[in-house]
């Protein structure tokens, strides 16, 4: 009995879908909007070209090819898809103002036409120093809101690159390699959001190299033989559908407190860990900024303000600055002592020689 009622539902659903499809001639009316962000040179534009199956935006391995946020519209299997290509973010301290500009224009764009999915792109094969990415991820989260990770996918390019040798001298298996590389970024994001469980952001592997192995449909294959493009599109549609139906995904189990902070600087709420209380509320605000003192000394200034405005903590971290100041003071001291040490007659002599 149960079995037949299920098939009945499937049949009627299929019928309804085919009727709808016949009515709308070309446009299935399910627009998908994707925002693509990430560091410079990781393959954002190349991934967009691969998704559409044609060259929609310029790529260049050696120089940034995307200089402004670009809106790219196309159709994938009859579905209208809109993708926002953004200029790459940079890791060096000096480029933070550029990053801020890019992120604030992305933020404006998100307000105007909020994306269904955010693709955070990075390379699979250059993760060894990814701890350097934490400041960048913090900046991104502070501009786009921590709720952005609810609809994000981590896209790792160069996915068919051969894994490096493991400690025993033999190459690592692809699964181990992919798991370890992606886990690095996942951990950074968990640290950022203050999560200490195993929640994960969905991952998509990407391969844009023209010579990578393809199947008979011309779709590029990963090491496991799957077409990455179909997987990625499926993931995007799933995220969109889930968010529309408002199903809670694991990251939703904690409430995201997005403070409406009108602040130019990266600000984030500070949580005291209450193990007995699932309801997390913020306890204060931490404003952090990296600056360059005198144009060359990196420093981090942080201000922590408690919620009741009773406590305020200012901190300036700069090991470099202290070292330089100590050097400068030592120089001055040496110069002064050298002056004192010279006997009077010598000093007079010097004055005569160099009038």
């Amino acid at each position, binding site marked *: 009995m149960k079995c037949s009622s299920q098939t009945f539902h499937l049949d009627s659903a299929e019928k309804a879908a085919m009727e709808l499809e016949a009515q709308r001639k070309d446009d299935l009316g399910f627009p998908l909007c994707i925002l693509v962000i990430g560091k410079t040179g990781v393959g954002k534009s190349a991934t967009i070209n691969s998704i559409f199956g044609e060259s929609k935006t310029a790529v260049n*391995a050696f120089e*940034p090819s995307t200089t402004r946020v670009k809106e790219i519209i196309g159709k994938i299997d009859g579905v209208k898809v809109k993708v926002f290509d953004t200029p790459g973010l940079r890791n060096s*301290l000096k*480029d933070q103002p550029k990053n801020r500009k890019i992120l604030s224009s992305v933020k404006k764009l998100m307000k105007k036409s909020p994306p269904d999915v955010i693709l955070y792109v990075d390379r699979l094969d250059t993760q060894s120093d990814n*701890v350097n990415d934490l400041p*960048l991820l913090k900046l991104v989260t502070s501009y786009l809101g921590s709720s952005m990770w609810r609809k994000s996918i981590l896209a790792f390019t160069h996915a068919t690159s051969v894994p490096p040798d493991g400690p025993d001298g033999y190459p*690592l298996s692809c699964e181990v390699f992919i798991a370890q590389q992606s886990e690095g970024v996942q951990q950074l994001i968990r640290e950022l959001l203050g999560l200490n469980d195993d929640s994960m952001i969905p991952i998509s592997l990407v391969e844009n190299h023209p010579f990578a192995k393809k199947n008979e449909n011309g779709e590029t294959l990963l090491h496991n033989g799957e077409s990455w493009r179909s997987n990625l599109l499926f993931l995007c549609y799933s995220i969109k559908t889930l968010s529309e139906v408002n199903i809670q995904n694991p990251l939703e189990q904690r409430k995201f407190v997005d403070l409406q902070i009108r602040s130019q600087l990266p600000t984030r709420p500070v949580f005291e860990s209450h193990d007995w209380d699932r309801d997390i509320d913020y306890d204060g605000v931490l404003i952090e900024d990296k600056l360059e003192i005198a144009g060359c000394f990196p420093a981090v200034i942080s201000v922590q303000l408690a919620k009741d*405005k009773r406590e305020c903590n200012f901190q300036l971290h700069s090991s470099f600055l202290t070292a330089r100041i100590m050097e400068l003071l030592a120089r001055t001291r040496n110069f002064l002592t050298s002056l004192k040490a010279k006997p009077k007659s010598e000093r007079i002599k010097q004055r005569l020689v160099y009038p």
Partner: protein
Amino acid sequence: MAGQLVKEWAGIQQFPVATQEKLVDLLAKLKNQNADTLTILVMGKGGVGKSSTINSIIGERVVTVSAFQSETPRPVMVSRSRAGFTLNIIDTPGLVEGGYVNDQVFDSIKRFLMTKTIDVLLYVDRLDAYRVDDLDKQVVKAITDSFGKEIWHKAMVVLTHAQLSPPDALTYEELFSKRSESLLKCVRQGARISKKDVQNFAIPVALVENSGRCNKNEHDEKILPTGTPWIPNVVHAITDIALNGHGGILVDQKVIHPFNPSIPKHNVMPFLAFVLQYFFVIKPIQKQIKYDVSRETIPSWA
């Protein structure tokens, strides 16, 4: 230095015969020119393949390598001798941390190199990291500031991960040329080598592939996609630099402490810094906060 037993360069035996012959020839060339030790300093950002390259050249796993953890924690010197010739290679930690150049690493490297002479500097980066950014320039600048501009007379660039398929429909030669040129341009800018001076600073670029799946030729030598066996190629470039007429860089007190700060017994500076901060920073801020609080009309959050 006297009395220190240096290990025999056993690793040379595990190379294929063709490679061994070439290496022995190069060592003989050095000995002929009365150079019986060679000290090579290997530097670069984290995760580029410094330790792997050293392991490949020595022919045994002398330095631990992990593709995932942050790399070598402190500078380490590996010494091997063969037929009266001693090879010293110094592995260093990555020079970049958290978006800027790590000064503490530089200090630890300089302290480690005290009284040693650098004959050759290997500046290592990846062939497949196509972008050059401000961070690279800062690394080069820091190296130049630490050891002096003369170090670039004794330097070469090593590009790892050489076995790859070029992007953007470039040929391998085009890729190598573009990548070398952009990295060399960055080095010239960071080291402040003027356009006129460029021919005086001929910095060679060599390719390296450290993984076990490196392709091999008919003599079982590890080769690049161009067909060149890369280990003799790199060692050849190193010997050319060693014998190029410019003196090695001696790391002495002058290099490490250019201003010679001697910390006196009664250090008045921290106290002075605190006093100044208290009067000129803390007090005014406290006054402002009090003023702000007195003017507060909006109820606090909750």
